[in-house]
């Protein structure tokens, strides 16, 4: 079950701008969703009014502005759905559903939080950081990218007090190497009360292992192909760590406790 009754309707494009060579931010006016949304939840957007592409595309909430009644998503153009979305114009009407899924659990001790982001996994952390900073909790974000072109959000996160450390294998970041290597190093140096991770499967899997070893409770935000995003189709599974049955990412997640997830699964 989703936490709020999701809103399904039309929202107007307030802004759709390129923030990095392949990365865009789409801002939509949708007071209902803005009012109900929590960090870590997502929206499901129709890229076309036609039947191809047929399915909506899910994106994490990247900005939640209750006052303005807007939400944003930060997306990378990877295929035809995101290509079409990048063509959305100011004032255009967009068909979307949200907020969907369970967001980050922030009711746990989190004086000193650690974010681990891989690539577009950076998207959900800004609203999370806002909630944390409102409570005077501190946060460090380890942010891995392939190259400088993939970097987004750094200055925004810093503005609201997050300490951002970037990692890349091409040397463009603070740390030369994988974000999970940076994580290993960081966990040796500092103690954190709560971890949040979002990014590619392999990165999340390694992050889980490292945090488990460091006894740091970790929440992961997962992805899956989704047909409905609502719990109707049961298509968006990932195995539970009990080895028996499945989580449904759209309703049980997308954020789950890492220990509940079996990352050994592959498609």
């Amino acid at each position: 079950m989703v936490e709020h009754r999701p809103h399904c309707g039309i929202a107007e494009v307030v802004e759709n701008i390129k923030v990095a060579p392949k990365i865009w931010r789409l801002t939509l006016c949708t007071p209902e969703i803005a009012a109900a949304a929590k960090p870590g939840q997502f929206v499901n957007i129709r890229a076309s009014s036609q039947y191809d592409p047929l399915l909506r595309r899910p994106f994490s909430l990247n900005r939640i502005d209750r006052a303005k009644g807007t939400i944003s998503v930060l997306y990378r153009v990877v295929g035809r759905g995101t290509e079409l979305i990048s063509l959305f114009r100011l004032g255009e009407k967009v068909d979307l559903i949200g907020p969907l899924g369970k967001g980050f659990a922030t009711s746990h001790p989190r004086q000193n939080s650690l974010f681990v982001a891989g690539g577009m996994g950076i998207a959900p952390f800004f609203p999370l950081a806002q909630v944390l900073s409102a409570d005077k909790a501190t946060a460090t974000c380890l942010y891995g990218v392939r190259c400088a072109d993939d970097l987004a959000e750094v200055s925004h996160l810093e503005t609201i007090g997050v300490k951002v450390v970037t990692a890349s294998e091409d040397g463009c970041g603070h740390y030369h190497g994988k974000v999970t290597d940076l994580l290993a190093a960081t966990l040796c140096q500092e103690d954190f009360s709560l971890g949040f991770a979002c990014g590619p499967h392999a990165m999340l899997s390694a992050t889980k292992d490292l945090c488990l070893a460091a006894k740091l409770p970790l929440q992961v935000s997962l992805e899956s192909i989704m047909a409905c995003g609502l719990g109707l189709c049961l298509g968006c599974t990932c195995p539970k760590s009990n080895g028996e049955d499945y989580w449904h990412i759209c309703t049980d997640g997308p954020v789950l406790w890492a220990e509940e997830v079996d990352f050994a699964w592959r498609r």
Partner: protein
Amino acid sequence: MEKINPLATSLAGLSLSSPLVTASGTCGYARELSEFFDLGMLGAIVVKGITLAPRTGNPGTRLIETPAGLINSIGLENPGVEKFISGEMPFLRQQHAPVIVNISGNTEEEYAALATRLDKVVGVSALEVNISCPNVKTGGMAFGASTIAAARVTTLVRQHSQLPLIVKLSPNVTDIAAIARAVEEAGADAISLINTLLGMAIDIETRRPILRGTFGGLSGPAIKPVALRMVYQVFRAVKIPVIGMGGISTWQDAAEFILAGATAVGIGTASMVNPLAVPTIHQGLQAYATRQGVRNIAELRGMAHQQ
């Protein structure tokens, strides 16, 4: 005086407030959709396929988007009949729509056991016997592929249940009319069709089928022309009512199925893409009936067959 409902219809002894029903497996147990519209708009709620024992469903990727279509390989994930009755029926009983339970078995005995178990459950209005699921190893589609097997399952379920019996056919056959006649003779009260077309996709980088079970079921607008053709063929072949489905996404699509002969129409993939599909189609059909000058949509049923 009561307002006349131009969409009210009846099917196999059930009275439906509209010809619109959910397509099994695309609307869970109706909880989620109830957040989007009044389920009373539905002629019936056809629930996700139920099996005797709980099933966790298939491992690996379960969904593939295709041009105007969707391949699924859910593998009948469901809590099993007991947990369905205790966990889902209380909610379903409170809805203002008859509940049709879609059942699947690996063996004939399982179908019989499911029929027996569900027969006296309060709130269950009819059974939809799925002899067409492509996503389970044994059984499933095998029953739907031969007239003999289809008739046997139908007879058996008939023997174990007093409930109106709807048999759901597989489209992956040479002669859908023959299968329809066979299940009619075996005692089916209605036929629903189509289930998904068997399809697949291959990952050209890993060079492997994307689905662990290789094949999955194709649904959505892509299959509508095939579904409509089969409903048209079956309408001519049998006297029992037909629930038509397969790619219906707009009221125009629904109207086509009714003209082809469907008494009711199932909305599946469309509801997943747009949870407001049912109310939108409901409104459109109502206006269409008025424009066509009929007092009830049923007057349009099968009109495409007239010379």
